[in-house]
């Protein structure tokens, strides 16, 4: 093989409709390197990797694997030549065991029968060799997210791949799990393998990558040796201008309790208790953050407050007035606003224009006589939001489905902050899938809202976001609040590790961090 790169893409172009996802992108991934591909959402990095893996076909350009040009690329071609991919959303069958999942599609046979014992022992050897500690006989649905990811990596290794592409591998991991993953990846490289890492988290890039490719708007804009690189340099390349990553916030004076939740018990989607007695108070002028691994009751908490989900027991009140059991529209009328966790699911009608979406949830405030919508006022309203939040394209009649994720989210935040008589703002994952520029704007608006006396409840999977925005932070674990941290604890050096430990139930707050079991 000599000095042939493990994976090489030459002048790859790919368009989806009118959108160029990749424009003449070239990438050389050397053997035994950890090559990070970074960029904002929509920069085209996932598309590029899908092309490398044969999952999508390029309109133009060449894919070379280990010095060999692949003419008609496909996933099976990629795997046959040793290129494997770990997707962000795992492709596992929950009811099967680890071993069964790993061999699925390429089952080893003996005399025509499935030879799971051989598979299990092979997997055990692999997992010991690379420190991927999982029991081959465990059922996948019983595993933690971090362990499931190991199963995905094992799938790739078991198929004999030595080039592993990982798409946003840490998005679902706690900080400790992410560090374990990095140890595994370094081990792989020492063993002669090559890792390609798609991410938008810069600290990870700096911690682990040997080489960094930065993409912006479908093009490769920069490439660096990781040694000596700073986060500012990468961000500058990603965004095309210097960016302040987190907003400064001044201490404010606390006002009256605006949102109060008492003894809240809620049943989740599968009939199991999702919230098991939640008490929380958010006062005017503060941001209360809620941390937790996804699926620990965050969605149910928000839905119970907004009125989208029935409550078994407990009360929710706004400005001291109980709203439990009231319809959603009533809750908005007494001062609630809600930025939903998934804008495509709950926040926007994608087939509606910007102006129609700008009044969704406030449509009753825009009627003239006979319940007819006052189009002029709707349009003025949309124009105002577009102007104030720099929403693009600045055309109120543009369909929301044709906007970038960041602009869609800006529209949602703008709309929610434009409500009348606003006192409580609930923001669930307000910057998920949003580019850095929009993150900056949304964070600034949230701080402004807090400064003008709103009570803000912030739920996020990004610990950095929670830490920099929250005045207080509550940790949600299995439907209960297991700890609440004040400013001092939030600013402590080891805050992220402590929060991460609490999120996984590894740290009993009564015992203190040093006594943490495991």
């Amino acid at each position, binding site marked *: 093989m000599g000095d042939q790169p493990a994976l090489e893409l030459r002048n790859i172009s790919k368009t989806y409709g009118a959108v160029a996802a990749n424009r003449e992108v070239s990438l050389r991934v050397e053997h035994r390197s950890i090559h990070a591909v970074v960029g904002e959402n*929509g920069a085209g990095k996932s598309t590029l990797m899908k092309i490398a893996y044969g999952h999508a076909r390029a309109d133009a350009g060449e894919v070379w694997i280990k010095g060999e040009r692949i003419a008609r690329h496909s996933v099976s071609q990629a795997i046959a030549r040793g290129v494997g991919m770990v997707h962000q959303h795992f492709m596992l069958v929950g009811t099967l065991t680890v071993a069964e999942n790993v061999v699925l599609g390429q089952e080893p046979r003996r005399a025509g029968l499935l030879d799971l014992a051989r598979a299990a022992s092979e997997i055990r050897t692999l997992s010991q060799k690379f420190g991927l500690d999982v029991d081959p006989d465990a059922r996948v649905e019983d595993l933690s997210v971090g362990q499931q990811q190991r199963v995905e990596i094992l799938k790739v290794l078991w198929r004999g791949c030595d080039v592993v592409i990982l798409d946003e591998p840490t998005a679902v991991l706690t900080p400790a799990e992410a560090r374990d993953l990095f140890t595994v990846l370094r081990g792989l490289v020492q063993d002669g393998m090559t890792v390609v890492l798609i991410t938008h988290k810069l600290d990870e890039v700096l911690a682990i990558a040997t080489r960094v490719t930065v993409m912006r708007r479908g093009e490769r804009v920069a490439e660096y040796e990781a040694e000596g690189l700073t986060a500012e340099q990468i961000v500058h390349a990603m965004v095309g201008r210097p960016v302040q990553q987190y907003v400064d916030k001044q201490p404010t004076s606390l006002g009256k309790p605006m949102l109060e939740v008492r003894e809240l018990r809620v049943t989740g989607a599968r009939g199991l208790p999702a919230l098991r007695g939640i008490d929380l108070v958010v006062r005017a002028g503060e941001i209360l953050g809620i941390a937790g691994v996804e699926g620990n009751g965050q969605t149910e908490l928000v839905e119970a407050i907004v009125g989208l989900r029935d409550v078994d027991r407990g009360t929710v009140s706004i400005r001291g007035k109980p709203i439990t059991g009231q319809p959603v529209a009533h809750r908005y009328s007494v001062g609630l606003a809600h930025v939903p966790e998934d804008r495509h699911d709950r926040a926007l009608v994608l087939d509606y224009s910007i102006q129609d979406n700008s009044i969704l949830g406030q449509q009753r405030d825009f009627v003239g006589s006979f319940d007819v919508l006052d189009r002029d006022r709707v349009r003025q309203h949309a124009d105002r939001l577009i102007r104030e939040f720099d929403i693009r394209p600045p055309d109120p009649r543009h369909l929301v489905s044709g906007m970038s994720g960041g602009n869609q989210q800006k529209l949602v935040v703008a709309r929610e902050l434009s409500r009348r008589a606003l006192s409580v703002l609930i923001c669930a994952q307000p910057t998920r899938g949003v580019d850095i520029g929009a993150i900056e704007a949304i964070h600034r608006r949230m701080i402004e809202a807090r400064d003008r006396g709103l009570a803000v409840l912030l739920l996020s999977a990004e610990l950095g976001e929670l830490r920099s925005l929250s005045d207080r932070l509550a940790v949600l674990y299995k439907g209960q609040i297991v700890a609440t941290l004040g400013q001092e604890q939030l600013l402590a050096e080891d805050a992220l590790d402590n929060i991460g430990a609490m999120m996984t139930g590894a740290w009993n707050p009564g015992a203190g961090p040093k006594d943490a079991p495991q």
Partner: protein
Amino acid sequence: MKRGGLTIGFAMLVAALAGSVLIWFIGKSPLAVYGLLLQRTWGTPYGIGEVLFRATPLILTGLSVMVAFKVGLFNIGAQGQLAAGSFITALCGAALPASLPGPIAVAVCVLAGMLAGAALAGLAGILKIRYGAHEVINTIMLNFIVSAVILWIGNAHVFVKYTLHTRVISDNATLSHLGFTGSEANTSLLLALGLAAAVAYFFNRTRRGFEWRAVGHNPRAAQNGGVQLAGVVIGAMVMSGALAGAVGANYVLGSKHYYERGIGGDVGFMGIAVALLGRNHPAGIVLAALLLGTLQYGGLAVSEQVPKEIFQILQAVIILTVACASAYRGHLFKGKPAAVSVKVSQDTGGERDAAEREHG
């Protein structure tokens, strides 16, 4: 809308070719038959009137199906709803005192028919909300029940002896003909056009229409926007049923002047095709109803040349072609991607948007 017109133009071409093959097979000249068909439908006042008479109920059932589609429901019970509506319209018309002023008598009869259709469809909506039973099952089962109940009540109490029809309605409740040299086209066409305009206005201009459309596109976002889904489902079924129930105005008040078992033929089910051809838009529905009305009457008008069944085949080919073309482009009625959407990671919003634009 432009693309929709293109699709239908293409579908008509496909149907015309298929029809040509059939006509040629019988030994006639396709061009001559088509020419005759056009001449006998749109070429004479009487032909135009007969086309309009057949288009009127199709407009109403098309609107009925469309209203349900708009909020994401599939009402395939227009057949039963129009039967119930026509039956009640006829009973009403026969029971009203002859001294009542005409406009009032007509209004009472039409409203009674709409109420009957609304009640029937509303019941299907309530069953869905209350017990979670799918509206397709509810509406089609109610079709059977209504058909049986009308026959039973009719035979036992209201049908004229030894017939399957009710008594003739009183004169003041009849609708006048539109002229067209003795054709059956009557003023219920104006009612249908008025309702089409009203439905368009409702969906495009009113707050409720805004909410209903939102429910059709994304019920979860609408719910988060303070819309109560149960109310919208029942409301849309009621409106859908009322539109189907108005069909009685055309047949009972405007043409036959009594209810007869089987009245309207399959115009309830054809409403689904009309809504599909009309791209779920009131103006499109009016045009689609005229197209199908032309083929229906045209088939009759040239039946001494070729069997009229050929034109039923043509209708079906048009509908099939449009359905295939719509599905092929990834659209089914609402402009939503019908193809299984690829689950992309949450953090690739931009790329997902790009993919959506590609399908959209």
